[in-house]
């Protein structure tokens, strides 16, 4: 279990933690940094509950080794809101009741953010295919897809292009 110091930026703040062995980025976030908002549903990259954004790319934190985070810019659910102002995605998930148990919600929100960062006006089909890596067993996805579409519209109004 040789461990090395890993330096990265998490939600805009510089962090240092000990990483190594078979430890994933998800384990490091949860166990070393105590950012438990990212969840482990499978540990094999199939469910998306651990979705985070690394240098602008959507990744499953369970599939990335912790030392690979060296020098990277990592966004997690804990950084999605701007202080106490919710992100439009968070707001629309609440308005639409797009969560039941809420366990998949952090991952779905981060995956949705990664989508809207690159495609501000997705079709329903584009939302469904982009989110196909994020399983939700409670909602049947209907309200989630609507929430993402409405959040996209909110963001377009905020930032006219």
């Amino acid at each position, binding site marked *: 279990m040789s461990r090395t110091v890993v330096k990265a930026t998490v939600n805009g703040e510089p962090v240092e933690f000990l990483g190594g062995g078979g430890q994933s980025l998800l384990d490091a976030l949860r166990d070393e940094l105590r950012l438990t908002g990212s*969840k482990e549903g499978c540990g094999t990259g199939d*469910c998306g509950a651990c979705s985070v954004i690394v240098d602008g790319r959507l990744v499953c934190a369970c599939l990335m080794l912790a030392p690979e985070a060296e020098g990277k810019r990592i966004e997690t659910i*804990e950084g999605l809101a701007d202080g106490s102002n919710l992100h439009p995605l968070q707001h629309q998930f609440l308005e639409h009741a797009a969560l*039941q148990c*809420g366990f998949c919600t952090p991952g779905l929100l981060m995956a949705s953010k990664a989508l809207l960062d690159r495609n501000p006006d997705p079709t329903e089909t584009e939302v469904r295919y982009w989110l196909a890596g994020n*399983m939700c067993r409670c909602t049947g996805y209907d309200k989630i897809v609507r929430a993402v579409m409405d959040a996209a519209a909110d963001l377009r109004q905020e930032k006219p292009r």
Partner: protein
Amino acid sequence: MSDGNQGGKLKVVGQRPIRPDGVDKVTGRAQFGADFHLPGMLAGRIKRSPHAHARIVKIDASAAASLPGVKAIVTSVDFDRGASGEVEAGEGHTAIREVAENCLASGKVLYVGHAVAAVAATHPEIAAEAIDLIEVTYEALPHVIDVEEAMAPGAPLLHADLFTKGVNPKPDKPSNIALKSVMGRGDVPGAFKSADVIVEGRYTTAAVHQGYIEPHACVASWGADGQSTVWCSSQGQFLVRALVAKILGMPLSDLKVIPAEIGGGFGGKTTVYLEPVALALSRKCGRPVKLVMSREEVFLASGPTSGSVMDVKIAATKDGKITGAEMMLAYQAGAFPGSPVHLGCMTAFACYDVENLALVGYDVVSNRPKVAAYRAPGAPMAAFAVESAIDELARKLGMDPIDLRLKNAVRDGAKTVYGATVKSAAFVETLEMVKASAHYKTPLAKGQARGVAAGFWFNIGGESSAAVHVDEDGGVTVVSSNPDIGGSRASMAMMAAETLGLPIERVRCIIGDTASIGYSGSTGGSRVTFATGMAVVQAAEKVVADLKRRAAETWGCDLAMVEWADGVAKCADPSKDAKPLSMKAIASRSAKTGGPIAAEVSINAQGAAAGYGVHLCDLEIDPETGRSTVIRYTAAQDVGRAIHPAYVEGQLQGGAAQGIGWALNEEYVYGKSGQLENASFLDYRMPVASDLPMIDTILVEARPNPRHPYGAKGVGEVPIVPPLAAVANAVSHIVGERMTSLPLSPAKVLAAMAKR
């Protein structure tokens, strides 16, 4: 007491406020089972059987025990071997001895993944290494996976002491058939003799997992004085307390169970797997222990629900009146008795008024994980067979499938086969609304087909507790006794706000642990909004009565002259110069009128009303791959009155999606050696967003439940009952033959299409 029919006057019930725990859940602050951390906490890990069936000859943990960092090792000898009795667990009883044996095997392992030992160590990697160092010597035994093979004479026997119940005289030889369940009425042979039309078929379904995204997780901490705490994700903190305390031989009052947020359960978290093991480890070393299952462990050793084999035969007149039916249901129980086959028998024809019925169910053990409850346990499989057969009947008679169901639908006063009388049922109205829907009237495109199916679930009431505390500033905290699995904090707060006349923003709702609120049954059986909601309303009514008394005292008027409306007490006595007293005004001077204002109510809620659902599924099939795609879906349901309609819609949509997965993709696949071959989300294929269309809902509020203060019926389970047949009926119409075996995987559909 209100009568459940006060629709026009409601101000909060029926609205769609943001749930009280919403912000926690969209910001990552909500703490689920694996999110707790305590100082000095150890990581636990479980050693599991590689065999489907074997005798445990010896467990040698000496090498593991000497590994630095290993603090405790437990096996079944660390449980209370005398533990016995049953615990009420949602929709059935759970035998404690079998739960203990399932948590840690003693004499034999009964399925691949059966737990045999556990380790607690200072680091997860050390715990994993220690698990590999534990040497278990097995004597492998012949195994049996398939339900029909397990029933056959000469099959490998799982339990030498298992004799079929429900057979007279008592059998003298043990069997894998744990129970024969028989029910019926009337003259079934006569009905078939005089029938104009008979349909019959054999239907099978595969074992499927509940598929909650959060794996089982807990932290357990033993105190030196024996007083212990367990934090865990479950559907019932009181159920966990009872099972853990009894398995470890300790008084219930020495154990506090704190419910974490729960990341889905669907019935699968109405038992324990990890909690007694974690506490036994903590008891051995005096440090807190965390145990978390991997997804593979979830598939191997928790859930699933039964696979089934069913023969169904229906007799009808030529104008579509069903005169009689007979059905055989054989359900897999997994390694220990307890499949929901009796519920399958009870629900199979519960939508229909059929005079002559004969049902026989078999509960069959085999070398699979012990089944756990799954949303309307036992009903979806039975409904798959019956609703497919009724679709077949509609085709034979040339009748519209909804008209055929309307002709036979239960109405109030009908007797069910299990003896209950149908009350407050809106099945007819639900069918009529589906028939009148835009979806049903929309013509299908070429290559598409539409499936119709119905479903029933009892819904239950039972024991619940709730407290309402008025804060000094006139706000209110509701303490619920049930884990919030899908938004129940919102409905509890709304019913309290409605009763107290407060805006929803002034009411908060928390979930109490076992030491801070009275007992409650589990979050299961679609009972929380009904039963715990009733306790909340009664507690709020007590608070209102107390507020009125205090106002009367303040004014020096007769209590009968005090009115409570919109959160304000008013005096109707014109002789008094009494200014209205707000909640805040009364609460701020509560010390002068008798002390803090609060009420706790514990009840055994009666009068739960059954629910009925009708689903429509439009579907097309890719002729090259056999892949089915659902292109339009509507779920309609008799919901009594929807307290928070968005969360009720969510139940219908989520249940439909699970049912679609059950119908098209999901199954436990076993190899010859009894290994589960698809224990991952990659290979056990649950529906993802790109697999599904929007799911339209129709909330039928024609018959509010008169036994609930706001008319609520349970809503969570009904929606998984119709989809299996709704999907299969559509597939059958496209394929051109009756598809009788779930899942309707592309390969199976392609093979059926190739034959034609």
